[in-house]
């Protein structure tokens, strides 16, 4: 069970950070435009972080199977392929998750 007080604290912190980011350009437009470093990190980090979140969300399940992480690799490849071609997040997620659930339960 997730502790309610802790969860509320996390939600409040995340809400503040997200709002601050969305509000920043309205209070500090010039500063942002002048700081190449802030911009460069803004370009570098999102792809790195998404890659990390993807890998991290898979390692738990992937390292459990005695036969190797094939279900995870196959399902993620399918999601990437469908998303690359279709640009439809919902379709990609449903197709990939269905394949994964099928492999895990009936494979």
């Amino acid at each position, binding site marked *: 069970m*997730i502790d*309610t007080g*802790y*969860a*509320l*604290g*996390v*939600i409040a912190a*995340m809400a503040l*950070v*997200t*709002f601050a*980011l*969305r*509000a*920043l*350009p*309205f209070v500090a*437009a010039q500063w*942002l*435009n002048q700081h*190449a*470093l802030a*911009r460069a*990190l*803004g*370009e*570098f*980090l*999102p*792809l*790195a*972080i*998404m*890659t*990390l*979140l*993807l890998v*991290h*969300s*898979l*390692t738990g399940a992937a390292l459990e199977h005695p036969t190797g992480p094939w*279900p*995870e690799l196959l*399902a*993620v490849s399918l*999601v990437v392929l469908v*998303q*690359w071609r279709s*640009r*439809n*997040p919902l379709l*990609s*997620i449903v197709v*990939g*998750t269905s394949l*994964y*659930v099928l*492999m895990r*339960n009936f494979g």
Partner: protein
Amino acid sequence: MTEHQILPSDRAPAQFSVLALTAPVAMGYIPLGAVFGFLFVQAGGDWWLAMVASLLVYAGASQFMMIPMLAAGLPLGTIALATLIVNSRHVFYGLSLMNRLPASWSLRWYMVFALTDETYSLLTTLPGATSPRQMALLAALNHSWWVLGSVAGAAIGAQAHIALAGLDFVLAALFAVLTVEQWRSRKSSVPLWVALAAYALAYPLAARHALVISIALSIVAGLLWQARSPAGADDD
């Protein structure tokens, strides 16, 4: 949430309906919000906390990210930092909308709060003559789809005992979708390789803290990478 095209490019009639404009967003937000609510409850959170999160945080990727982090009991500061990084792209949305937002104080700040990827892309496609109230209505409708979906998903999650293994793959699938979209708009593929290397380094060291360690390594690498190519200013 994700940076895909919601509107067919040829749809910009003079007499548009705000409700029609948000329909594609509803079709994305309600199911995705439901997935968030469902996973949140399944991870051990109360249903109303999922609703509060969607109401107050209202940022898809970081809300999904918060589930494993909450379940693992990570320190508040770590989660705040991860939120800062994942949502940093939002900083650049406001710049292009600066002069178009409502003059009214409360409407203006509500819109700033509600600037998700999808709302941003809809707002930028609106005709110049759109009234501030219509812009705010659009933002509020999108917000309510997200909250509605989260509550529905949390309600289902509170009832259901999942019989199927592997449903939590939706989270990985969502991250894969976001990675693809980041990759599509990348200026360099270095961040992806840096992230993979950082994780490969961090995992054997401390599997439980691999995410935090590899995020920190990526930040350091990003700073070094920028310092090595000080041309940051020449890209525009």
